[in-house]
């Protein structure tokens, strides 16, 4: 049987066209990879709009600066009662605020711990609802408030609100009174 020789010279790949094609593909992939940039994901943090009426909160967190805050809950009443000898007059708001500042100021780490404990206590005990009011001074970055709120969002028994206000507002409030088990701050 006779075999015919193949003509190899006709089957050569055109080199210039191949290089051309490869470069075009290369440019195409470079451009697409530049255009499809991975963007950072974003999330939504819900904050209820404040009510224009006097409210009641189980916990008040007054942000003092970006590192510290004043935590006022039912223990503030005990603190004021126990150290009443440090308050010369009942209407001396400055002395009351100074006492609360000395006893109930938390740094960021302590605040995180306190919030974790709050959530644990809610999970263990009766499902009592809490309202946490966060007061943030106007000149501070809003991130000071959002970093507290983000720790509260995942608990259905904790409601929260956020308003503007400084420690100076508490100092210059009309009154800070203990009425039974309630600490009343009349701004």
């Amino acid at each position, binding site marked *: 049987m006779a075999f015919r020789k193949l003509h190899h010279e006709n089957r050569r790949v055109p080199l210039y066209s191949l290089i051309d094609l490869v470069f075009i593909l290369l440019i195409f992939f470079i451009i697409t990879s530049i255009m499809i940039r991975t963007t950072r994901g974003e999330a939504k943090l819900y904050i209820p709009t404040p009510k224009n009426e006097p409210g009641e909160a189980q916990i008040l967190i007054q942000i003092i600066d970006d590192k510290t805050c004043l935590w006022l809950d039912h223990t503030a009443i005990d603190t004021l009662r126990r150290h009443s000898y440090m308050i010369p007059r009942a209407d001396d708001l400055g002395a009351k605020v100074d006492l609360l500042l000395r006893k109930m100021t938390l740094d960021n780490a302590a605040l995180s711990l306190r919030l974790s404990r709050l959530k644990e206590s809610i999970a263990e005990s009766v499902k009592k609802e809490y309202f946490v009011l966060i007061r943030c001074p106007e000149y501070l970055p*809003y991130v000071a408030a959002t970093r507290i709120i983000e720790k509260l969002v995942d608990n259905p028994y904790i409601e929260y609100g956020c308003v503007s206000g400084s420690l100076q507002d508490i100092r210059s409030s009309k009154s800070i009174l203990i009425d039974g088990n309630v600490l009343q701050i009349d701004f």
Partner: protein
Amino acid sequence: MAFQRKENERTLELFSLIDIVFLLLLFFLVSFAFRLAGEVSDAKVFSEINLPVTDTKLPVIKNDVLENLMIQITPDTSQLGISRRVYVLWPSFEDTTKILRLQAFYRAAQDSTFAVFPPDFLRLPDDRFYASAPCTLITNSIGRYIEKEKFYHSNTHPTVEVRAELNTEFKLINLIMNICSAQRQAIPQVIIRTTL
């Protein structure tokens, strides 16, 4: 003189054909992509801001289609001293059309739906602060947004989103919340955008 036909030279050059096809494809793809992304890329450059970092337990935004009215606050250095620039980004009210956040930002920049706070806005008395151009812009926009939402989607509560630079003063966030609070029946909550 006799001419001889060269039949064998009429074969199709496959590589050249692919070459041209790819060139055309590339041209149309890139020009189309640039037309779409041109405005978005401009917007992306100017709207890139540092947001507060939070963890992943918050609802994550999958595709950045603008669903609510968005107030975007960016740093502004056009005046003496650092100030804040407020953009109002409008969503699409028709269910059939959607608008991306970056497209909305581009439109806001084009339509001049933005305003700049004076550098000393923190020290301004309340009456001058609330009468400033950004406050008026935010108030009017939220009012108009509620009216439009009532008209187009009467069953849903309108929501306002805030996308603000990390260092934005709480006063501005509080301003937006207070304006929404005045419309509390309509806007029970605001959304703060964070990054993961």
